[in-house]
């Protein structure tokens, strides 16, 4: 068992690309679910729209990156409108079913052979991140402290990513202490009471859906640029539920909850993967019980159990306030 490698991998995971991507996705969900009580089960759809908006604009149509990012952002706004118009007047579980369906529609469409020339089928799109790395201020070398560190490309995307996380947190913090944010929280607690005060609940919910979607879709951009390639199956329903686990782990309706949640979540997954792998290599666990290819399946089982246990025993997560989690909304 090589504990130093296990610990370094866990440290890298705590600030790595996945952490940034899922922190952004969960910050968006926090606006939806934590503050407004909207059950958006299609957050992966927002990430997909952003990532594909950028990738298709640059790789398929050969247009500049900034236009791609604008198209991705516009796509997220349009998606929020499309989801919100039919469902925001209905019961909460309708929004859940429609958003998960919409995210699957997006994934199935971009992975289809019919639209392969535009979206690249199940192979997705590559070669669109060049413009981003041309802006890289870090000279080409490894940036290490001991064995812990990143290369210049990772440094650049992580710098941009964490700046986006910080800005998103700031936006959420400012919004939620404004009168507007207090109306959102009031909607979460009792929609009818807010309506009786003359507030247009539908409009507030729609604004929340759009803002959360746009914040979440930043995760899609960071993922696409960080990996320099995207495949449709990254944006499956599991991605959304990872983001939910992160949000509930950190604490919903807390500005820093999603960020801390994402860091802990990816450290747990990195530790479980690496410890299992090392234990199998060292012969502590029989290969007939778990083979190295099956280790990845345990990660999902852990996520499933974590989500269940958190929801049952500590729905407020690490930092949340139990009184503030109105999970009994309709």
């Amino acid at each position, binding site marked *: 068992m090589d504990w130093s490698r296990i610990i370094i991998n866990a440290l890298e995971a705590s600030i790595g690309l996945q952490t940034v991507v899922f922190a952004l996705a969960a910050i968006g969900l926090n606006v939806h679910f934590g503050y407004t009580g909207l*059950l958006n089960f299609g957050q992966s759809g927002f990430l997909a729209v952003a990532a594909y908006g950028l990738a298709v604009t640059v790789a398929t149509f050969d247009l500049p990156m900034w236009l791609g990012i604008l198209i991705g952002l516009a796509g997220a706004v349009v998606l929020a409108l499309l989801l919100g118009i039919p469902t925001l*007047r209905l019961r909460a579980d309708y929004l859940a079913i429609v958003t998960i369906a919409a995210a*699957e529609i997006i994934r199935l469409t971009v992975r289809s*052979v019919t639209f392969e020339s535009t979206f690249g089928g199940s192979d997705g799109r590559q070669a669109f991140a060049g413009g981003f790395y041309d802006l890289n201020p870090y000279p080409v070398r490894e940036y290490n402290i001991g064995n812990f560190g990143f290369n210049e490309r990772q440094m650049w995307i992580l710098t941009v990513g964490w700046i986006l996380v910080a800005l998103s947190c700031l936006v959420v913090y400012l919004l939620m202490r404004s009168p507007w944010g207090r109306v959102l929280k009031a909607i979460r607690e009792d929609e009818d009471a807010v309506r009786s005060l003359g507030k247009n609940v*539908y409009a507030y919910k729609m604004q929340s859906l759009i803002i959360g979607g746009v914040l979440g879709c930043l995760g899609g951009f960071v993922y696409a640029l960080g990996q320099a390639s995207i495949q449709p199956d990254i944006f499956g329903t599991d991605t959304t539920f990872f983001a939910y686990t992160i949000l509930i782990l950190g604490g919903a309706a807390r500005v820093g909850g999603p960020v801390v949640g994402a860091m802990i979540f990816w450290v747990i997954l990195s530790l479980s993967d690496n410890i299992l792998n090392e234990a199998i290599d060292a012969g502590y666990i029989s290969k007939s019980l778990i083979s190295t290819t099956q280790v990845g399946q345990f990660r999902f*089982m852990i996520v499933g*159990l974590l*989500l269940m246990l958190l929801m049952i025993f500590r729905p407020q997560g690490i930092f949340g306030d139990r009184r503030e989690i109105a999970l009994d909304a309709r």
Partner: protein
Amino acid sequence: MRKRVAFFLAALVSALVVVLGMGASAAQADGESIFGFLFQTKKAERVAYPGVQITVKGPKGFSDKATSDKTGKWSVDVPGPGTYTVSIDTKALPKGVNLTDESKKSLKVPVLVDQDKPVLFPLGKSTRVVESKWSQAAQLIAEGFRFGLIMALAAVGLSLIFGTTGLTNFAHGELVTLGALLTWWISTGNLPFLPDFGGLQFFPAAAIALVLCGLFGWANDAWLWAPLRRRGTGLIAAMIVSIGLGIFLRYFYLYLFTGNTRQYPDYQGAKGIDIGPISLASVDYWSMAVAIVVLLGTILALQKTRIGKATRAVSDNPALAAASGIDVDTVIRVVWISGAMLAGLAGVLLGLAQGINFQMGFQILLLIFAAVTLGGLGTAYGALVGSIVVGMFISVSTLWIPVELKNVGALGILIVILLVRPQGILGRAQRVG
């Protein structure tokens, strides 16, 4: 019509050849290969097609070619287990002979350790092209009806659970998968962690599997949902718990069953029976019959029996039902057991129709939601009607849209229906805001 009979005979014979071939190859299990025969049965005589080139491509840039010999046999040794793409060069086939399904020109096949994997390219007249739109439509309606019935079995359970407890059960797909997996394990005798006991016939295996599904439904309620209800866990919290349970079970199945799609050993390569323009395998007919009988039984039970009436009462208004002396917890327990058994049966029948894999239930879960929403959340009969409509819609829509996008169409109508009639076909209007 005679040609189609000939085709099915050919398919049957090829299936036999494949089975015999597997028996023969089991003896010499050493290394992996992919093999097959190219032939067609014409008037009970076997016509082989020599000199046709087959290309096998695999992981790590592996690529090899083989040419069929006098008996039509071809075989390629592959370097190891993995997924390989086998494609046929149809240009070398004689005129008038082609693949019966043009889209099957290249097949993706998984090869296991030490397996000699048989691959079959069904040859004959290209039947799809000749068919008129109408007979195609009839065939698709029949297939859609079968799929709708299977979905209905699962949807009724989902809808009853929603009606009685308010829980939107995202782990319902895993109940569907469980039925199929248990039946496969029992009928092959390969239960995980247990010694091989040789396996049972399909029907007793399915019966045992359904009983186990019922037990699992009981355990679900007794150990998870009933305690949560007692604690007063909210509906949205419970929904998220069910998502966690679903993810856990799905990947636990993957761990136990591996990622392969398998078939029930008793039902590989069944032959078709024609009724008018519709041609389905005999197993399809009787699985439809089973589904119809069970669904009618469920309706009768809901309509006539004491517990059925109590179920509908609880669905309607739990507080009122409890006040009038109905034991709500018992009703919910019964709903969970029967819902899990219905879902398990749906899994068994779905496994017969399209093979068994660890996420077969999850793959139809959203379609079941679409069906339940279409029919009206919480109404059992609505779920039934909605399932059949969605099943047929998915199937018939492939006349105009590519097969890979058929589920997109179904999920699309879900959204449109919520715009126009959010309470569904049979639901009562209820709105917020």
